[in-house]
C-alpha cells in the first residue's frame, strides 16, 4: 500500500492543518465484499501458513505420491522388519561436515533372548541421499512412465527408512505418502456431501418454516442424538464385505457425511431464517420472484461464505473419524491404505512400546487436522469482514 505518501499531513497555504482523513476508511468504502474478505484472510498469517502446509500435503500425497516416496509402498523386506528411523545427517561420527546429506546403513541382528531385532548403525559406510535420482519405475500422474524420484539413495536396493519400517519391513515414509491420498480426500468427499445435504435441508427448513421446518428439525435432532463413533462403526460394519476398496472408501465418506450434515443444516437454517425477514426478500417477493428463484439467488449466495467456513471446519472431524474407523479395522480396507489403517498396527500396545515409530502416521493426521482448523479459522474471520 502507498499509505505513507497519503498520510503526510497536508498543510494548506494558510498554515492551517487540513482534516486528516484516515486513508484506510476511504479505501474500505471502495472495495468490494470479496476484496474485503481477501484482505481479512491475508491478515491471518497462521491461516496462510496452514494453507501452504495443506497445498504441500496435497501435491506430494494426493497428486504425486510415487514421485515423493522412496520405496514402493507394498514392497516387503523380511530382513528389515521394525527397523528404527534412520537419522539424516550432515556431520559424520567424526564431526566432518558433508554438504550432501547421508544416512548410516544398519547392521541387523536377532537377539535370541528377547526375540527382537537389534539394529546398530554401521558407521564405516555412508549412504548419500540424491535428489531427483532414479529408483523404482512408476507412472507419473498415472500417465508417464518414469523412475525419477524426489529423493533416494544411490542404489534402490539400499534401505532408506526415514520413518523406520513396519512389521513386514515396509517403508513407513512411503506408506504414509501413499496413505495420505485416501486420508486427505475422504474429508473432501465427505464435506462435499455434507455441504450439499446441509445447505439443501437447512435452506428448505429455514425458508419454508412451519411443518416442514418442524419435521427437518426433528430429523436433525435425532441424528444428533446418536453418538458419532458407535453409529459410524455400526454403519461401517454393515458395508458388504465383498465391496471393492474404492466402493468402501465412498461408503465410508457417505456414512460420515450422513450424520455430519445435521450440524451444518442447523446453522444454515438460522442464517436463512434471518435473511427471509429482510427487506430484499420482501422486495423480491413483491417483484414476483418465485420461491425457488429467491432461494437460489438470495438465500444460498448470502449464506455461502458461512457454509464454506463450517464446511472447512468440519473436514478435521471427518479426517479424525476416518482415522478412528480404520484404526478399529472398520474403515478403509486393504489393498487401500489410509493413515488410520497404518495406525491399526499400533493397536497392540506391546508392539508400540517396542517400536514407537509405527505411530508416526498419527503425526500426519495431527498436522492435517491442525492445518484445516487454522485455515477454517482464517476463513471465518474473512467471511464476515464487516465485524470489528
Amino acid at each position: 500500500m502507498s499509505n505513507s505518501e497519503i498520510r503526510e499531513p497536508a498543510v494548506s497555504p494558510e498554515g492551517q492543518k487540513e482534516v486528516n482523513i484516515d486513508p484506510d476508511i476511504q479505501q474500505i468504502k471502495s472495495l468490494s465484499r470479496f476484496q474485503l474478505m481477501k484482505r481479512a484472510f491475508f491478515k491471518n498469517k497462521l491461516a496462510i501458513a496452514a494453507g501452504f502446509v495443506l497445498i504441500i500435503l496435497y501435491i506430494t500425497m494426493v497428486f504425486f505420491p510415487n514421485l515423493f516416496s522412496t520405496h514402493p509402498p507394498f514392497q516387503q523386506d523380511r530382513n528389515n522388519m521394525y527397523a528404527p528411523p534412520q537419522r539424516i545427517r550432515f556431520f559424520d561420527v567424526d564431526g566432518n561436515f558433508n554438504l550432501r546429506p547421508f544416512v548410516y546403513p544398519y547392521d541387523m541382528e536377532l537377539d535370541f533372548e528377547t526375540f527382537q531385532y537389534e539394529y546398530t548403525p554401521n558407521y564405516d559406510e555412508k549412504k548419500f541421499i540424491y535428489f531427483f535420482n532414479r529408483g523404482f519405475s512408476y507412472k507419473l500422474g498415472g500417465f508417464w512412465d518414469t523412475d525419477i524420484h524426489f529423493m533416494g539413495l544411490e542404489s534402490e536396493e539400499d534401505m532408506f527408512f526415514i520413518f523406520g519400517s513396519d512389521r513386514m519391513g515396509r517403508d513407513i515414509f512411503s506408506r504414509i505418502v501413499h496413505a495420505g491420498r485416501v486420508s486427505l480426500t475422504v474429508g473432501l468427499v465427505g464435506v462435499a456431501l455434507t455441504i450439499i445435504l446441509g445447505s439443501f435441508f437447512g435452506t428448505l427448513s429455514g425458508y419454508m418454516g412451519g411443518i416442514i421446518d418442524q419435521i427437518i428439525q426433528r430429523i436433525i435432532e435425532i441424528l444428533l442424538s446418536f453418538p458419532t463413533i458407535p453409529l459410524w462403526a455400526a454403519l461401517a460394519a454393515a458395508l458388504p464385505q465383498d465391496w471393492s476398496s474404492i466402493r468402501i472408501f465412498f461408503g465410508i465418506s457417505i456414512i460420515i457425511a450422513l450424520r455430519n450434515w445435521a450440524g451444518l443444516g442447523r446453522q444454515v437454517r438460522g442464517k436463512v431464517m434471518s435473511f427471509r425477514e429482510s427487506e430484499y426478500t420482501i422486495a423480491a417477493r413483491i417483484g414476483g420472484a418465485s420461491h425457488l428463484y429467491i432461494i437460489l439467488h438470495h438465500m444460498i449466495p448470502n449464506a455461502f461464505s458461512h457454509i464454506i467456513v463450517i464446511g472447512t471446519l468440519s473436514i478435521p472431524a471427518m479426517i479424525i473419524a476416518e482415522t478412528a474407523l480404520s484404526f478399529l479395522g472398520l474403515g478403509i480396507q486393504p489393498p487401500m491404505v489410509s493413515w488410520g489403517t497404518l495406525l491399526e498396527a499400533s493397536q497392540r500396545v506391546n508392539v508400540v512400546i517396542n517400536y514407537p515409530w509405527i505411530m508416526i502416521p498419527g503425526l500426519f493426521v495431527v498436522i492435517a487436522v491442525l492445518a484445516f482448523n487454522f485455515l477454517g479459522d482464517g476463513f471465518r474471520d474473512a467471511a464476515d469482514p464487516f465485524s470489528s
Partner: protein
Amino acid sequence: MTAFLVRRSFYMIFTLIVVSILGFIIINLPPGTYLDVYIAELQSMGTATAMEQRQAIVQRFGLDQPLYYQYWNWISGFIRGDFGISFMYERPVSDLIWSRLGYTVILSTSTLIFTWLVALPIGIYSAVNKYSIGDNIFTFFGFLGLSIPNFLLALVFMVISARVLGHTVGGLFSMEYRDAVWSIGKFIDLLKHLWIPVIVVGTAGTATLIRIMRGNLLDILNQQYIQTARAKGLKENIVIYKHAVRNAIHPLIMQLGMTFPQIISGGMIVAIVLSLPTVGPMYFEALAQQDMYLAGTFLMMVSFLLIFGNLVADFLLALVDPRIRYE
C-alpha cells in the same frame, strides 16, 4: 417449569423410540447373523441337537418373522430388563452390560467434571488477559488438543509411561482389585487409574470449552452493562465474576449437549487402547462378530445416556435462564 419439563420429556421419549427403531435397523443391516456362524460351529462339533437348538432360538426371537415383529419382540423385552442373548458369549445380554455401562457412566461423568474444572478458569483467564502470553499458549495447546485423535493420545501416554515409569497404565484396577468386592481400597485404586483415561478423553472437550468460554466472555465484556458496572466503581473481580462470568456460562451449559457425545464416543475408542472395562471394547467386538442383540443393546444404551444427558442439560439451562422456560 413443570410444563417445560413435561414437554421436554415427551420429546425425549419420542426421540428414544425413533433412535431405537433406526438402531435396530442398522444393527440388522449386515447380511447373515452370528446365529448362522454359531449354528455352523455347533454342527461342526457334531452336536446332533444343533438344528433343534437353532429352531429354539429362532422361535424365541422370532427370527423367521418380519423385521418389525423382531423389533417389537426385542424392544418390549426392555421393560422387563430382557435384552435378548449374546450369541458370542452364550449368555443373556443383561448379564454382560451393567458393569460396563456403570464404568462408562463413571468415566464420562468424571471426564465431564474434569473438562469444566479445567476449561472454566482457563477460559476466564484467556478472555480477561486477551492476547497475553498465557492466552496465546493456552490457545495453541487448545488447538493441539482439538487436533489429536484421543486414541492416539492414549497410545502416546502408554508409550511414555512404559518407557519412563517402566509399567503400562492400562485398565481401571490393579491386578489384586480386579475381581475383588467393592471396598475403600478398591475405590482408591480406581481413582489412581481413572485420571489417565479422564485426561485422554477430556482433552478435546476441554479445548472446545476453553474456546467457547473465552469467546463468550469477550463478547460480554464488551457490553454496556459491564461498562456501567465499572463506571460505578465496582471492584474488577466483582465485575468479572458476578456480572460477566455468570452470563457467559449459559452457552456453555447448552454446549453440554455437544460435549457429552464427544466424551462418550471418544471414550469408546480410548477404552480399547487403555483396555478399560467400559462399553467400547465389547461393543466393537460385538459389531465385528455381528452379535446383534449385544451390539444393538449397547447402541441403545449409549444413545439413551446421551439423550438423557441432553435432557439434564436442558433442565439446567431452564433453571439458570428463565427465558428458556417461556419459549
